[in-house]
């Protein structure tokens, strides 16, 4: 035990929040008799300037080594008082914050006497903690002033632009041949009738030509090593197959024998193995070979001298301080036969229908047939009801109600004589989208509520398509709606990223999207230091929400790496090599790969903690059979002494 620590204890009234229940005078009287406590005081508001000044003066005058403040939860003012003791010349970690408001006075207003004893126990534990406290230093690591962004949709591009403007080097890696993601494929989006690609284009205009941005398309992250501030990233870039633009791209495309669904219109049509820039202003503006489907028949190379089919994959190595993951979503693809999807050409998904609308002139047509009646079925692929062990999307995709409402209003403005039926389970047009809902109602959209246990049925016979639904609001009256087109209002699914997930090891939530550290307090941070998530890879989001979260992620990443160095809390694990008996259980227990076996001078091989990788969870502390691992700032001795002190009456 450290001899003769000089500890000051300060008990806060919190204006009465504490002192109305806890007998603060009694607490001070009891605590001042504890050994090592040289001063104990109570005060109306300890966090006030006057309160903090009192502590600072005491530290100096009474030559205190350490301070306990007993007040609100440490979540509120622990940092405040660490600051106060630092100003007085103490190490910030020679401080203990005893919680006697949230965990005492507020919880035990019915039992003041026992509440007072509990406050004393909490403070005693604090005093015991400080008897064994040692000054600690924050861990400082250098940080590369550059950021990797994975995914070049609206979220990734927005993050890239923000980070670039803040003066950081930005590397953006996009798996597809063109940036723009799902947003670029959309038609007019709420609220300004701008098309998706126009939204992308307005970001690209600012982004392209900035000299601190590198964009890699056809590229995938192959490995990530290192840690916060110092990630080493390997990126593989597939060749485009094109050296430049083709003069007659139409002819080149026509000679390709391959036919696969065109992802740029959500499979509404087919494309060949040459992917032309799919929309105006697409970046890069050069076509790309689709290597997955190309059979290298070389017919295209015969008609265009810009094609080179034998270029090799390139590898680049990057050093970045932080990583923003913005891999977006995948539109839900209905199962074969789900509401006759795939078996009837008159059943489309919402994104496909949007593309159909985009391509229509003055008349809305599917093939040669004019469309007069459209039935929309809501919640396809979202809020699925589980049956058996099958994995279902139980979440709401949030954007689909808004998207279908927006699209309905737009097409009613554009085409005459349309009749729209919306078969819904519930409608979630939150925020300003309510206006769109209202407008859809005014324009004559017919809304029919169905029960999730009695979903609508799509019946196809010959040229007729009928949707049968039971209307929940008219006592389940059965309705049959003859329709020209059935549109499944599909939701969002996580982008399949198996390889990337293995590399990054980002936590994944129960819905399959990346999980933030805390939904409210750390909404774009992840448990992996230096890795942030932006946009719909975190969960369904509309464009506005994606942009919001990507700007937030950019700001968080920049805050970390802009200074070029990073300070980390010193609460990391430390191995006592003399006690380590090399059980290696800590190595297996550590989820961050922070523990290695190293050779120690004179002791041989023992466990060693990389303090930059260590998050201080303490799992290794419990796993060690010899008690050879401690967390700095919360050592085993401190914990044991705190238990003894609190248990003593």
């Amino acid at each position, binding site marked *: 035990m450290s001899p003769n620590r000089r500890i000051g204890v300060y008990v806060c009234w919190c204006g009465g929040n504490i002192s109305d229940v806890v007998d603060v005078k009694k607490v001070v009287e009891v605590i001042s008799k504890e050994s090592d406590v040289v001063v104990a005081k109570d005060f109306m508001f300890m966090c006030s300037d006057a309160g903090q000044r009192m502590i600072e003066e005491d530290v100096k005058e009474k030559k205190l080594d350490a301070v306990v403040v007993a007040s609100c939860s440490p979540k509120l003012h622990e940092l405040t008082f660490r600051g106060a003791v630092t100003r007085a010349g103490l190490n910030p970690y020679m401080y203990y914050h005893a919680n006697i408001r949230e965990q005492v006075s507020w919880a035990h207003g019915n039992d003041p006497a026992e509440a007072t004893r509990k406050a004393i126990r909490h403070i005693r534990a604090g005093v015991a903690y400080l008897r064994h406290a040692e000054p600690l230093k924050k861990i400082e690591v250098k940080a590369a002033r550059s950021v990797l962004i994975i995914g070049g949709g609206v979220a990734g591009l927005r993050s890239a632009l923000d980070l670039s403007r803040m003066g950081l080097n930005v590397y953006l890696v996009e798996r597809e041949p063109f940036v723009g993601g799902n947003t670029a494929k959309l038609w007019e989006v709420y609220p300004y009738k701008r098309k998706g690609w126009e939204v992308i284009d307005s970001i690209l205009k600012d982004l392209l030509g900035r000299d601190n941005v590198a964009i890699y398309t056809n590229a995938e992250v192959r490995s990530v090593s290192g840690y916060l501030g110092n990630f080493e990233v390997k990126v593989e870039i597939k060749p485009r197959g094109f050296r430049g633009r083709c003069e007659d791209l139409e002819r080149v495309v026509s000679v390709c024998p391959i036919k696969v669904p065109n992802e740029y219109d959500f499979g509404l049509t087919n494309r060949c193995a040459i992917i032309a820039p799919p929309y105006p202003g697409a970046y890069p503006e050069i076509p790309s070979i689709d290597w997955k489907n190309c059979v290298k028949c070389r017919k295209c190379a015969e008609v265009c001298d810009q094609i080179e089919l034998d270029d090799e994959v390139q590898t680049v190595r990057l050093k970045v301080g932080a990583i923003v993951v913005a891999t977006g979503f995948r539109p839900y693809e209905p199962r074969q036969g789900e509401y006759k999807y795939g078996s009837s050409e008159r059943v489309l998904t919402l994104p496909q229908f949007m593309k159909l609308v985009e391509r229509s002139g003055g008349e809305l047509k599917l093939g040669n047939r004019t469309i007069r009646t459209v039935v929309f079925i809501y919640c396809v692929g979202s809020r699925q009801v589980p049956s058996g062990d099958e994995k279902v999307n139980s979440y709401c995709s949030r954007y689909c109600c808004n998207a279908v409402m927006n699209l309905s209003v737009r097409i009613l403005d554009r085409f005459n004589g349309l009749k729209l039926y919306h078969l819904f389970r519930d409608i979630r047009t939150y925020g300003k989208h309510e206006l769109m809902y209202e407008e859809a109602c005014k324009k004559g959209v017919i809304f029919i509520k169905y029960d999730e246990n009695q979903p609508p049925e799509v019946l196809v016979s010959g040229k007729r398509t009928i949707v049968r639904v039971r209307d929940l609001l008219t006592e389940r009256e059965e309705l049959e709606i003859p329709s020209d087109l059935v549109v499944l209002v599909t939701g969002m699914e996580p982008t399949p990223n198996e390889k990337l997930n293995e590399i990054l090891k980002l936590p994944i939530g129960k819905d399959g999207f990346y999980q933030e550290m805390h939904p409210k307090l750390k909404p774009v941070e992840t448990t992996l230091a230096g890795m942030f998530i932006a946009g719909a890879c975190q969960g369904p989001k509309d464009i506005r929400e994606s942009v919001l979260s990507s700007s937030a992620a950019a700001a968080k990443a920049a805050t970390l790496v802009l200074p070029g160095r990073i300070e980390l809390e010193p609460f990391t694990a430390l191995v006592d090599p003399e006690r380590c008996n090399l059980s290696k259980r800590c190595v297996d227990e550590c989820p961050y790969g922070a523990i290695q076996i190293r050779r120690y001078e004179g002791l041989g091989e023992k466990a060693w903690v990389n303090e930059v990788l260590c998050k201080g969870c303490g799992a290794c*502390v419990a796993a060690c059979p010899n008690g050879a691992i401690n967390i700095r700032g919360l050592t085993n001795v401190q914990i044991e002494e705190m238990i003894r002190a609190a248990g003593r009456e």
Partner: protein
Amino acid sequence: MISYVGIDFAGLQHMHYPATTSIMRLPCSSMIRPEWIILALKNGFDGVFVAADGTDCPYLRDCTDRTAKRIDDALKLAEKEGIEPQRIKMAAICSVCGEPFANHMHNFYRELKELGPVKR
């Protein structure tokens, strides 16, 4: 970390639970060495309740499973020491689990009262 916020939340909502509790904060419940639980039971406490973070834990998503293993080990130690296993309890307490926490405390208090003090 998360459960600590949940316990704060109980106070924030002025939910009463027995004041004969003492609360100790750990970064993650999986840090608990089983012998600390026994130490507490031998040093004035009649029961030890471990509030695990559940899947919200910022450190370890599986911290509850890991903590459960520590509890298993603590129960084995308790058996050797002749301490009743009912004195050791664990539950996941989320950041807004104020009410479940208060309920756990009421029930645990009642059970410990029936059990009487630890034979030392």
